[in-house]
């Protein structure tokens, strides 16, 4: 798989120059960290390039790293798949809490529609250009983004648990 890393890295560097901030293998996955502004272009390129042909968006998800420096506190992960060649890569990008804008990829893959809504729901990423960026899983009235690390998991209303027992 590391040759795949090289191939994709070279292609991306040829096309986007220094957009690739880092690339490494994580287990059997080539992972690329891209500049936030160029992610969409890069994803589109990866899909449309005849040789790479990453035609399938396997999944995407948000990441929250409170321990990171402020400018890379939040992250997004896209995972692409080229079925005929069975190539899989992961694209990551990082951004700050203040600027969670991200260009939508719904026009590249329709499947991104709900994935992006989910990440908006969980983390508050603002996918610019998304046709219907609303909360999807949680109630519309919810006023925070529950997957961020600072918010608690528990429902505070329960009354049948003894908090002492579980280290709270």
């Amino acid at each position, binding site marked *: 798989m590391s040759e795949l890393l090289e191939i994709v890295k070279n292609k991306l560097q040829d096309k986007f120059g220094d957009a690739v901030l880092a690339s490494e293998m994580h*287990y059997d996955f080539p992972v690329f960290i891209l500049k936030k502004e160029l992610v969409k272009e890069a994803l589109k390129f990866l899909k449309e390039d005849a040789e790479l042909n990453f*035609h399938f968006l*396997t999944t995407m998800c948000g*990441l929250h790293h409170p321990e990171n420096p402020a400018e890379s506190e939040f992250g997004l992960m896209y995972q692409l798949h080229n079925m005929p060649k*069975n190539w899989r890569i992961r694209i990551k990008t990082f951004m700050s809490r203040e600027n969670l804008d991200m260009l939508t990829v719904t026009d590249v893959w329709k*499947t991104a529609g*709900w994935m992006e809504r989910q990440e908006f729901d969980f983390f508050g990423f603002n996918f610019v250009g998304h046709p219907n960026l609303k909360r999807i*899983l949680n109630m519309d009235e919810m006023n925070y983004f529950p997957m961020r690390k600072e918010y608690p998991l528990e429902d505070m209303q329960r009354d049948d648990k003894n908090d002492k027992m579980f280290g709270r």
Partner: protein
Amino acid sequence: MNATSSTYDEKQYSTLNLGPTHPATHGIFQNILTMDGEMIVDSVSTVGYIHRAFEKLAEHRPYNQITPITDRLNYCSSPINNMGWHMTVEKLIGAEIPKRAQYMRVIIMELSRIADHIVCDTVIAVDTGAMTGFLHLFQYREWIYEIFEEICGARLTTNIGRIGGMERDFSPKAWEKLDHFLKNFPTGLREFQKLVDRNRIFMDRTINVGGITVDMALDYGFTGPNLRAAGVDYDVRVANPYSSYEDFEFDIPVGTNGDTYDRYMVRMEEMWQSLRIIEQAVKNIPDGAYHADLPEFYLPEKQDVYNKMEALIYHFKIVMGETAVPKGEVYHSVEGGNGELGFYLVSDGGRQPFRLHFRRPCFIYYQAYPDMIRGGMLSDAILTMSSMNVIAGELDA
């Protein structure tokens, strides 16, 4: 796709609220259909009615406690989820699983695939109005439950297997029940197929209903039986074999144009293929240990806990979740009942996962639903829904 009912002329079109307590939606999601008589002009889906915050919950539970959570993802085939999770962690810690355990896993996973497809296919039949076949086949599902119960002690939410292998070997009784199942299930399945498959009413109801092209299916992230029904032979078991799937011979059933009948038939055939795999696994299962030698992750035998200091320490460490998990991120996917079930795990070396993202096939392909039912009739919409096998637990996570 996102037009609301108000953009249409109120008089000409009526809106119909399908769900969330409509019988065909099984109480879990809502579709607001814009209808012209019985024709569906548009539909807007609302999901999240049983959102349970799996991903957040997983960040607050030690690794071994996440298994019961994964049970509740696609609850029709919990063992596959359990195994997928175990394999993800095993990949993270670099564990080598003995062949016997791998074969046992294969048997369990294929059994639960059969259980999953039984639910889906019979529910399609029920939604067309044929109730009897459902009850005929459900008896065999009950047998699968018995096998699971013998292996792990639960019927549906199995919590089966452990990180590093299985929690116990198959008992002789389990083998016996498995044999019994393998012997009798083909008769029952064949009978069900005779009852439903070639009945013209059923065929008319399902052929060319809710079809989807290959391009659309890939665009919408379809995987599993639904993608195969459209004609792509993508199967994680073959593309990225795990747990020794490369040892087994089986075909990948595909359909022609991804309609309801294709989805139904593909699932039917997958049950036959699963039977084939189980038979091979039962025949060729090697002797040996049923779990890997992983003192840091796999609970020691009880007698060692009592007797050996080292084992006792490990026991405490594992239960308290204070094991040294390597840092890193790993993605592992298995072929779940509905498609590629992926686990994206980010570990910071702590007690719990730093981030665990589930690639839930249902959630991803259900968004194609409005496109698939547009232009069809209400009855088509319901059949399309049941043939897509939308499982709420997986949909809303």
